[in-house]
């Protein structure tokens, strides 16, 4: 019982982020449409950012207070010292900012590749592409 409260209830951010990671990664593997695979990859990357940034939140404890004390973002104003605010860890936000923009740029490159595949084969489904590829090999068109 103590293992349950200590490792499951206090770390609920990890379980939520892990669920979305598993959903995104399974979608990338299982689905056959190429566009759905790209969407699964984007879901996976977004859940990773959520998990990493939530490590730095300060002042939240589910067992003592229901979110009455929270951390403020790391903008260092002078009035925060009088009111008793505690700052959030800024290093984690810094490392994930560049990751967000890079993931958007690589999604655009993946979509450009899908457009090229559609122009050559005429379809996006994966099993039809494999059949057409075998036909091209037999007939010698390349």
């Amino acid at each position, binding site marked *: 019982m103590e293992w349950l409260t200590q490792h499951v209830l206090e770390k609920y951010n990890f379980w939520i982020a892990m669920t979305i990671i598993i959903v995104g990664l399974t979608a990338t593997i299982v689905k056959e449409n190429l566009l759905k695979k790209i969407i699964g990859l984007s879901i996976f990357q977004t859940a990773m950012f959520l998990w990493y940034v939530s490590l730095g939140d300060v002042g939240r404890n589910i067992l003592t207070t229901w979110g009455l004390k929270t951390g403020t973002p790391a903008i260092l104003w002078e009035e925060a010292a009088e009111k008793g605010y505690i700052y959030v860890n800024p290093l984690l936000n810094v490392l994930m900012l560049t990751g*967000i*923009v890079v993931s958007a*740029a690589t999604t655009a490159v993946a979509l450009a590749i899908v457009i090229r595949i559609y122009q050559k084969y005429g379809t996006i489904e994966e099993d039809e592409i494999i059949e057409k590829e075998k036909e091209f090999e037999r007939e010698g068109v390349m």
Partner: protein
Amino acid sequence: MTQERRAYKRDVVIEVTTSLIVPLILLFGLYVMMGTGGTGGGFQGGTILAAGFILYITVFGVDKGREKVPESVNAFFLSFGLFLYNGIGWLCILFSLATAQWLNMPAFWPVTEFTGVAGARSFLIAYMISAGIGLTVMAAFVSQYFDLAMKEDDEMEGDEG
């Protein structure tokens, strides 16, 4: 060939609203891009600026969008932003004799006698580094959107290899 490539009928409400709100989006993006006086930063401001241009292209069509953001202006901003940031970075590496310290750049500026070292670093963060990041990110996203949305004249002709 010279007909309009539209898939929907023109709507007055959408066009008037967009032409009123796009300058405000660009002004807000410029404010967010200088990130030293409050929230903001280079990446955040650059994506807001790109969102303004993408909204204009979506509503009015690709041809009219090409008149506002021609190819030469797009390529200029794409390389100018990288030139600003990488120029300062490689100068710092050179002057600190490859020990990679950012502090040496304010050290030999004559400006630091007036503002101090902290003021010179804040000037570098706000006006050179953030502007460099913002311009490159805006130009990259607008150029990617143009390529994905533009239809060439003869496609699906067969395979070229």
